[in-house]
């Protein structure tokens, strides 16, 4: 590859606090009747004032702490002034030069550390709906989302591939879910992604290659991790073609187009927008004590990476199993509860892990104690060794050559016939799942 991608990421995460960021309206807006979760504050009525949501601020700091950020003891809110019909005050309350969290990182599986520039707190906007009402094209505004707490997480331009970006996003999603501060549901817009992509020559000397390319392309409207990869791949291809012609891609904002996995130009940024930031006079600056930060840190649960490592070490699980079990905190907790109960019956964590992973146990309906019972039952059934079973299967297949023929022709139902034959011969209850696997191996 002649060019190397330089990718940075802005991620917005909507918090799942009960109330909105600056008023007591419910923040649970999804699927609600338009403009039913509103008040003078989130409608931007004359005279209304914002009062910050303490929980949201604490959660924002916890996200920062989980991303290894420094938490400055002084912080403040600022007004970001711009006009848009979904922004009722004519400014968004955000944070400019004193965000809650700075200078963090997230470690990828490769060991590469992606720099987290800042994590700050702001408010969501309303939603514009363009519709035809009695034959007329109109734009409607729903302010239910207006003022919902939003955390923005900005990285350094440290990514070089779409895969790295995808892994970072998965890890980030996992972390905020572990913290229990957001559902991070892409489809509901709880998590919104904006990569910025540019290219530089890969053979540039280190001194020069530290310099960023003279342009940056930001891509918006991406609502899945898969689309981020596609958007990045498309941009790398598009920008390579431009650079090959000896030109420089223009600095702009592009939108992702789902149907052909491409991007189209939305807005050319001639210069940085002037948001006329200034300190929000309605909210006094915030001062933390070291104790408060320590306290917030102590409330952070064990995070996925640590948990995965611990599962490998303490439960002697293979890495792949550990990763699967820690993907969601609820599964990991379930597993550990079952391990604890299984210990009394001499069950190994690996036995329990196998059962959860292979049987795709629905942990919301099966209690850990029930699970342990099931594992015990199934392990009792394994009185006949695999080798013995294989012998029996071979015999059956030799006696019934048509079974193999039918199977190759696509008739998988023959497996059920073989299972019946085996059961008939051994006259014992055995784990049919294991048996099925063995039969299939034999048929290959």
């Amino acid at each position, binding site marked *: 590859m002649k060019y190397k991608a330089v990718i940075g990421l802005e991620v917005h995460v909507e918090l799942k606090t009960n109330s909105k960021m600056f008023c007591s309206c419910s923040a649970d807006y999804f699927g609600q009747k338009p403009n039913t979760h509103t008040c003078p504050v989130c*409608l931007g009525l004359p005279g209304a004032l914002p009062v910050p949501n303490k929980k949201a601020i604490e959660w924002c700091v916890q996200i920062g702490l989980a991303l290894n950020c420094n938490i400055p003891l002084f912080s403040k809110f600022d007004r970001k002034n711009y006009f848009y019909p979904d922004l009722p005050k004519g400014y968004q309350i955000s944070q400019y030069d004193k965000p809650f969290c700075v200078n963090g990182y997230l470690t990828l599986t490769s060991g590469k550390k992606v720099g987290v520039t800042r994590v700050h707190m702001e408010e969501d906007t309303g939603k514009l709906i363009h519709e035809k009402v009695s034959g007329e094209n109109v734009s409607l505004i729903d302010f239910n989302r207006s003022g919902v707490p939003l955390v923005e997480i900005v990285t350094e331009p440290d990514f070089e591939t779409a895969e790295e970006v995808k892994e970072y996003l998965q890890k980030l999603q996992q972390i905020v879910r572990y913290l229990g501060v957001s559902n991070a549901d892409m489809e509901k817009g709880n998590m919104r992604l904006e990569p910025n992509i540019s290219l530089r020559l890969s053979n540039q000397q280190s001194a020069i290659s530290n310099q960023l390319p003279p342009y940056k392309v930001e891509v918006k409207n991406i609502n899945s991790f898969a689309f981020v990869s596609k958007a990045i791949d498309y941009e790398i291809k598009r920008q390579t073609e431009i650079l090959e012609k000896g030109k420089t891609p223009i600095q702009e904002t592009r939108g992702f187009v789902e149907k052909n996995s491409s991007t189209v130009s939305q807005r050319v940024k001639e210069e940085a927008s002037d948001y006329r930031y200034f300190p929000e006079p309605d909210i006094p600056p915030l001062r933390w004590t070291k104790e408060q930060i320590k306290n917030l840190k102590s409330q952070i649960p064990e995070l996925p990476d640590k948990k995965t490592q611990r599962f490998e070490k303490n439960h002697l699980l293979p890495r792949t199993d550990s990763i699967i079990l820690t993907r969601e905190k609820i599964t990991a907790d379930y597993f550990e509860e079952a391990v604890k109960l299984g210990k009394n019956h001499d069950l190994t964590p690996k036995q329990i892990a196998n059962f959860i992973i292979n049987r795709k146990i629905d942990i919301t309906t099966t209690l850990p104690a029930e699970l342990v019972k099931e594992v015990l039952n199934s392990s009792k059934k394994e009185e006949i060794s695999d080798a013995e079973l294989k012998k029996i299967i071979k015999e059956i297949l030799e006696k019934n050559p048509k079974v193999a023929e039918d199977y190759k022709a696509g008739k998988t139902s023959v497996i059920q016939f073989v299972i019946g034959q085996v059961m008939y011969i051994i006259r014992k209850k055995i784990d049919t799942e294991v048996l099925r696997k063995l039969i299939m191996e034999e048929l290959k």
Partner: protein
Amino acid sequence: MKLNSLNIKEANEGLKKKSFSSVELTKACLDQIRKLEGKLNAFVTVTENEALEQAQEADKLISAGQDLPLLGIPIAIKDNFSTLGIKTTASSIVLDDYIPPYNATVVAKLKAAGMVLLGKTNMDAWAHGSSTETSDYGSTKNPWNIKYLPGGSSGGSAASVAADEVIAAIGSETAGSIRQPASWCGVVGLKPTYGRVSRYGVIAMGSSLDSPGPITKTVEDSALILEVLAGVDENDATTSPLPVGNYSQKLSKNIKELKIGISEEYFIDGIDKEVKEMVEGALKKFEKFGAKIENLKLFDPKYAIDVYTIIQRSEVSSNLARYDGIRYGNGRDYFKDEAKRRIMFGTYALSSGYYDQYYNKAQKVRTVIIDDFKKAFEKVDVIIAPTSPSLALPVGATKDSAMFGEIADVLVEPSSIAGLAGINIPIGFSKSGLPIGMQIIGPQFSEELVLSVAYEYEKLTQVEKWRGLKPNL
């Protein structure tokens, strides 16, 4: 004596003794409003029917033995305070048809205290000015001479109190908007410390400066209303959790130990000679009563004008952004020149590349001014100065002067910038028959002290002949 000319204390006593009812009191005020509004134009909205209903309700409660600080007292409120179900325009036609769905905290507190709301008073549009001449509903006139201005921006509130259209009124001050019209109209106007009274529901002007406060006939009334208004508000994050004083109970003060600071910077060149002499005369009286006068060297108030202008315009440019005509009110083309000028000025001052030069620098100087006052209050208890450098100016005086307000408010801007407590009290009249006021400034949250000093002066000079004067309308 006409009922409408009573102050709160007198009206409260009369109501309690059943010498008259709240309905009678309210009707007396409404009659006066009807009689004078053609000349004064102090109101944007008079809520006659609602007022009479509330008065009837108050009379029932009084009969039932209810005791509330303002029960049955007719009060007018500046038109930038949100009033549930009652049009609130800030005297701008941008909000010509805007009816708030909620009450400002100040309004809610006054209602809880039993007030009868008489209506909404005229002001400079968006509180941008010191004359009420920028009101989109026409200027208010000074009751002492209707060829003169009442000052502003709370000019309607000050004029309505001076003309006995109401028993008391509420104003709001960003820099001078209570004290200056109170001075020009010859009434008592208290600007509390920033954060002492909630701003929730007050149409924002300069958010880091706005301070609601009472405009009254006496200092004692001022203390009584402040007691109702002051205190922390869960809807305003900038309100102070400091406890609220029993202001009206603690008005007496031995001024023999009082140290009064004066600064020659506040007796500036160009100050009206009669104003200067009368304030100096008042200081002599303080001395005679035993107070000590100390000369201070304060920061020249002219710097405060620059700081104030930048900070206030910057905040205004952002605060007025919500008036886009999409959800309520008229569109942006309804803004008049003064608001447009301030929006442009503020937008420029906040623009990247200028932010450090203007807004940031102004904030730094603001800190210097705050420190300057802090040091001064280590030496003295209060600072006394003229409230306005001039007498009320004639109608039309502001038309060609974009910075009129800032010049008129030169003596109140430094203390506003520093968020201090200050009060204007009337001290006499000019030969031409226009009122002259003096301001007493104290440290932050020194309302008790400032009110006490004002109260003592009022008491000790109660015998002065001018006190009996009433506007001849």
